[in-house]
C-alpha cells in the first residue's frame, strides 16, 4: 500500500524536481576551485598533515548566492553520535579565495551533544567553502560548497 501511495505521489513534476536537485548537487560537487589561493593550499596542508580526508558526514549550509559578502551565514554540521568514544574533535572552515583563507576552527566535545555550529563570515569573491572534520579516532572528512558572491566583503 505504501508503494502504491508513493507511485501515485510520484508525478512528473516531482520527478523533474528531483532530477534538478541531483543535477545542481552534481555540479556543485564537481565545481572547479575557481579562485583557490596558494595561501589556502598551504593552510589546508597544515590541517591534513599528509593524511587524506574522506568525503561525507559533513553538511555545509550556505546560500548559493550571497548578495552581500560582508556577512554570509554558514552552518556546518557533522554526522556523529557524539559519545565519549566517538565524537567530532574539530571542524576547520576555509574560504578558499579569501586573502586569509581560514575562517574558523570549532572544537567540540561529547558534551556538545551535536557537532554543529553557525557563524557569519566575510567572502571576498565567488569561491568554495571547505570544511574538514577530525574525529576522535583521528579520521578526517571533507566537504565543500560553492557560494556566488555579488558584492565582495573584504573592503579593500
Amino acid at each position, binding site marked *: 500500500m505504501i508503494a502504491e501511495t508513493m507511485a501515485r505521489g510520484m508525478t512528473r513534476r516531482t520527478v523533474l524536481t528531483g532530477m534538478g536537485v541531483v543535477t545542481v548537487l552534481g555540479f556543485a560537487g564537481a565545481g572547479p576551485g575557481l579562485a583557490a589561493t596558494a595561501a589556502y593550499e598551504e593552510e589546508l596542508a597544515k590541517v591534513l598533515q599528509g593524511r587524506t580526508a574522506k568525503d561525507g558526514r559533513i553538511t555545509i549550509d550556505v546560500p548559493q548566492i550571497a548578495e552581500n559578502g560582508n556577512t554570509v551565514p554558514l552552518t556546518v554540521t557533522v554526522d556523529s553520535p557524539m559519545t565519549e568514544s566517538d565524537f567530532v574533535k574539530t571542524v576547520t572552515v576555509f574560504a578558499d579565495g579569501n586573502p*586569509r583563507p581560514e575562517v574558523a576552527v570549532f572544537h567540540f566535545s561529547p558534551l556538545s551533544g551535536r557537532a554543529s555550529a553557525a557563524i557569519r563570515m566575510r567572502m571576498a569573491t565567488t569561491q568554495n567553502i571547505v570544511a574538514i572534520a577530525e574525529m576522535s579516532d583521528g579520521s578526517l572528512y571533507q566537504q565543500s560548497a560553492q557560494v556566488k558572491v555579488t558584492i565582495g566583503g*573584504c573592503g579593500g
Partner: protein
Amino acid sequence: MSTAVKPRVKAPAKASKGEIFEVKTLVNHEMESGQRKDRQGAVIPRKIIKKFTARYNGRVVFSCDWYPSISSNPYLAFNIKADESGTIQYVWEDDDGTLYEAESKLAVN
C-alpha cells in the same frame, strides 16, 4: 572603538537531562580584518576576537578560533548537552588580550 563591547547570550534556563539545546551569542565588535586601508593608504591594523570558549560548570564544552574572515559583530550558535544544573560561562578573547564575559544559569531536571 567608541562603544563598549557587550556580549549577548540566548540560552535556555531549563532543560531535561540528556537534552541537547542551542546557545546563540552575539558580540558588538568591529572585527577589523587587517586587510583594509585608510584614506592615506595605510593598512588599518588587525583587531579581532580570536577565541571563544564555553565552560559548563568549569568544563570546556565548546570553543572556537576565529580569523579575520569572521564578520563584524560576530554571531555564533552552538549546542550543549544538559547533564547537570549549574552555570555556563562564555568568554571571548580579543587580539589585545581583553576578555569579554557572559554567563547563563541552567536548571536540569
